């Protein structure tokens, strides 16, 4: 009896502690949602209310019709640019990484260790540290100010991770399946495309989504490389809104929610992969 009361008291204390941190964790999210419902004519809201007075979806309507005050670039165009860059990055990195990951997983060839290590080392450099040469090289190749240049730059960042991710999955596919196929008269290439790839669809999908999310949210390289508003992505537009003093916070908030909602949904769907990938990668060093 006494033991139970002690535990109950302890639980009350724990609940209070956890709820305190939950409030901190969700507060910015609630704030941004409430902000987005503010009437558009309020430049900066002065009171804190979860559902503001005269709540309206006006801000969403505004950013969906004319996200850029200064240039008439329609939302659909920005969305297309974002999808193009993110999709292109994801496709390119999966295409490049799947063949390389297969070789790293199945063959023990000279240079294998160095190759794997080399892909990791390139990951250590933060993007801003290689910004200068990338900028110059893409400029000299005349693709810096295009969406293609952006895709190439992003893919170089996501390929190493994609290789590790896919190699880890290929390692779990039993070798016997391919050997059986080889005995039955398949060549290596057929074994790869007809057996390994179809079996690895979950891992390929995860790798694709990671590449997609990177391309979708990246703004720093895009902001440095692209100059024509017709090429801008959604993430760049949000950054630009922040810079403009006359953008009402409600529009900024609505636009943030529109951009980040898909990412959050994908994140919660992939949560297991993200966590296991990170902790596994960390353990392996």
């Amino acid at each position, binding site marked *: 009896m006494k033991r139970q009361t002690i535990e109950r008291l302890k*639980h009350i204390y*724990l*609940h209070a*502690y*956890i709820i305190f*941190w*939950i409030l901190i*964790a*969700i507060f*910015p999210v609630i*704030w941004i949602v409430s902000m987005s419902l503010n009437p558009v004519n309020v430049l*900066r809201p*002065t009171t*804190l209310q979860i559902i503001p007075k005269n709540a309206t979806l006006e801000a969403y309507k505004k950013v969906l019709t004319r996200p850029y005050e200064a240039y008439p670039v329609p939302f659909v165009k920005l969305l297309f640019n974002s999808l193009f860059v993110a999709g292109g990055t994801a496709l*390119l990195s999966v295409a*490049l990484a799947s*063949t*390389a990951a297969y070789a*790293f997983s*199945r*063959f*023990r*060839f*000279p240079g*294998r260790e160095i190759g794997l290590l080399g892909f990791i080392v*390139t990951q*250590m*450099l*933060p993007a*801003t*540290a*290689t*910004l*200068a*040469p*990338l*900028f*110059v*090289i893409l*400029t*000299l190749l005349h693709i810096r100010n295009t969406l293609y240049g952006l895709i190439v730059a992003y893919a*170089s960042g996501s*390929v190493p991770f994609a290789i590790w991710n896919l190699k880890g999955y290929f390692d779990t596919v039993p070798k016997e399946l391919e050997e059986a196929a080889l005995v039955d008269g398949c060549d290596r290439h057929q074994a790869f495309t007809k057996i390994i790839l179809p079996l690895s669809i979950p891992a390929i999908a995860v790798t694709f989504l990671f590449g997609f*999310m990177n391309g979708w949210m990246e*703004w*720093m390289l895009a*902001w*440095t490389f692209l100059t024509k508003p017709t090429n801008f992505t959604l993430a760049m537009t*949000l950054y630009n809104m*922040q810079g403009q003093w006359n953008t009402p916070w409600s529009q*900024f908030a609505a636009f*943030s929610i529109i951009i*980040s909602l898909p*990412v*959050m949904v994908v994140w919660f769907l992939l949560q297991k992969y993200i*966590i296991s990938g990170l*902790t596994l990668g*960390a*353990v392996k*060093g």
Partner: protein
Amino acid sequence: MTDKSDVKLWEQIRRHKLAYYYILPSAIVMALITAFPILYQVWMAFTNFNISNLRNPHPQFVGFANFIKIFTNQVPLENFNFWRTFAFNVVWTFANVFLHVAIGISLAVALNAPRLALKKVYRTLLVIPWAVPSYISALIWKNMFDVDFGAVNQILSSILGHAAKIPWLTNPNAPIKILPFLSYAFYADLITNVWLGFPFMMVVATGALQSIPQEIYEAAEIDGVNERGKFFKITLPLIRSAMLPAIMLGIVWTFNQFNVIYLVSGGGPLGTTEILVTQAYKIVNPGGLYGIASAFGLIVFFILLGITLITNRVTRATESEI
């Protein structure tokens, strides 16, 4: 002798021809967009490459001038100070990682209490900061730190009962006098990044706690060990080896936390919250000093390499101790 091993290597390479075909596409692209830029960067670091060279890429060779300029703070940018930036970067990293780990472990332990209700719901809600793209959260927090309209000051006002007007992002002075080099903006960045980072450490710690059998705690209870003793004598030592790799990862992430610093405080006011990666960015954009930026990037690379090697050694050393 060397001839023979050469033949053997060649033979091996020939035997694995197929493997190389498979690697070739990604190797070519990586060579073009990763390896070549890095080599190009090494060359650029020793030249006075600037905006005019974008049309005519034949800059002058200047030897170590770029490195000397960086180390003696002669870079023509406002508030450029390499050593202050580097020192601040280190303080920033340790303050953040310490708080991430402390909060993360405390929450994981709280959630690990047997028979606690609502655990699943709590865990889901607590990882929300991790799920929001860091780019968006940084922008949201920047707005929340607004002096007049920001949520942080408004909440403080309603708690204190009078108007709180903390100049989070504009005042270069230090609010805590014994830490004179840390401006208000540091605390704004710190709050943002702690919010961003504690869920990761919590998740890692939760995983590590699963491996501790409940019986150990029960046995300790019978022996009269109190809560504090249980935590410091059982929990901490047993989760340490699982936490260390995550802490290493956290150190590298926080050291390079571009989004929070650049978007919340912008490295300001007066450069008091600049870290190396934000400074590197500013040298390129708006600076346009590509030669100096390349040298700066190389310096950052070697600093990171050093940190990785040190943390690696620390982890190994502590692991063999156990």
